[in-house]
């Protein structure tokens, strides 16, 4: 699912035919970052991008309703795109599991993308490791079922956003390592030195063995507008290892 995120992070970059094929077998993506690092804004931008590509609706799961549009982009103001994003607010892990287990009973157009924001709110219910694994596995299974229903060649996406803590306790670390089994591709949002009047994040995409690692600068203007540019010092040099070592860091 890294390709959809790439499209958001690299606007205007046309996907070549090879990349389109890659998108069909893309692994699900885990979006990681500290509190206020812009995960919801980025996830919402992905939803808008997917809603505009002429395919099925986008399913956006989150425990509590969004209070406002998390990012200001021209696409966010397009009512046709907004209509294609279906928000669901499962209030507990139990309800979330119920939703995923019964997703095949839902009539109507098959979603082209499944997004879950705030997984940490569900994990906070003191889940056993096996329950965390089952939740992750069911997310994959639901996405695989949607993929099966939309048919071959359509591709299908799953992105799950998880808040990581600065001071991670052993329980969180166990949860993360379990989730990483099911989500080999990860995108980390790190805080970066802010420019004047804006707050910046560095987005590191590790596509889990599918394509190159990439970095972007995500800046939020005071008025809420999100701008994304390639990371200035972005090097294709695989020896630059800043990002892949981030796994053990907050």
């Amino acid at each position: 699912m890294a390709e959809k995120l790439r499209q958001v992070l690299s606007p205007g970059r046309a996907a070549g035919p090879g990349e389109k094929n890659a998108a069909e077998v893309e692994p699900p993506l885990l979006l990681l970052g500290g509190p206020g690092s812009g995960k919801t804004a980025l996830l919402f931008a992905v939803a808008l991008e997917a809603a505009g590509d002429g395919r099925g609706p986008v399913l956006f799961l989150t425990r509590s309703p969004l209070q406002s549009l998390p990012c200001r982009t021209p696409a966010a103001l397009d009512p046709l795109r907004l209509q294609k994003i279906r928000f669901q607010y499962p209030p507990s892990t139990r309800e979330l599991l119920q939703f995923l287990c019964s997703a095949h009973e839902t009539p109507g157009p098959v979603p082209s993308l499944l997004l879950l924001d705030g997984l940490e709110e569900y994990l906070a219910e003191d889940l056993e490791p096996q329950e965390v694994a089952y939740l992750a596995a069911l997310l994959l299974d639901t996405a695989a079922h949607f993929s099966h229903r939309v048919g071959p060649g359509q591709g299908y996406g799953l992105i799950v956003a998880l808040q990581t803590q600065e001071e991670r306790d052993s329980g969180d670390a166990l949860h993360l390592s379990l989730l990483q089994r099911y989500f080999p591709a990860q995108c980390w949002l790190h805080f970066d030195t802010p420019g004047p009047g804006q707050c910046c994040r560095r987005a590191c995409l590790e596509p889990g063995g599918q394509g190159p690692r990439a970095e972007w600068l995500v800046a939020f203007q005071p008025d809420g507008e999100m701008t994304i540019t390639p990371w200035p010092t972005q090097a294709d040099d695989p020896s630059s290892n800043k990002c892949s070592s981030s796994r053990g860091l907050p």
Partner: protein
Amino acid sequence: MSAATLPAVVEELLSEMEAAVRESARIPDEHLLSLKFVFGSSAIQALDLVDRQSITLISSPSGRRVYQVLGSSGKTYTCLASCHYCSCPAFAFSVLQKSDSLLCKHLLAVYLSQVMRTCQQLSVSDKQLTDILLMEKKQEA
């Protein structure tokens, strides 16, 4: 290891076994030895489950599928069809927590029954499939 895919060496072994079954309806001894080399005693137990036809592929009209494996203890475990998950305690402990096994014997039995085409098939309603997936959760709780 990713939970969605097997290591390449295991994928290769399974596809070789599948080809052998297609051609000669049996699995050559060297493949069985490789299986035992990779999976240890789980390989024998998994083959035993396959022999006893303990694996059932359950599907509903929606096209969603799930496997159930009747374990040697008489308990039934649920294995997801799309990624590695089994509800048995060995999967929780050896695979998820200790990471010292690739698969539990039930998941291996699912793969082997696919190769040997010995899966039992069961059709249920969409609602029943939901209950099977949810019941899974209740067993854990």
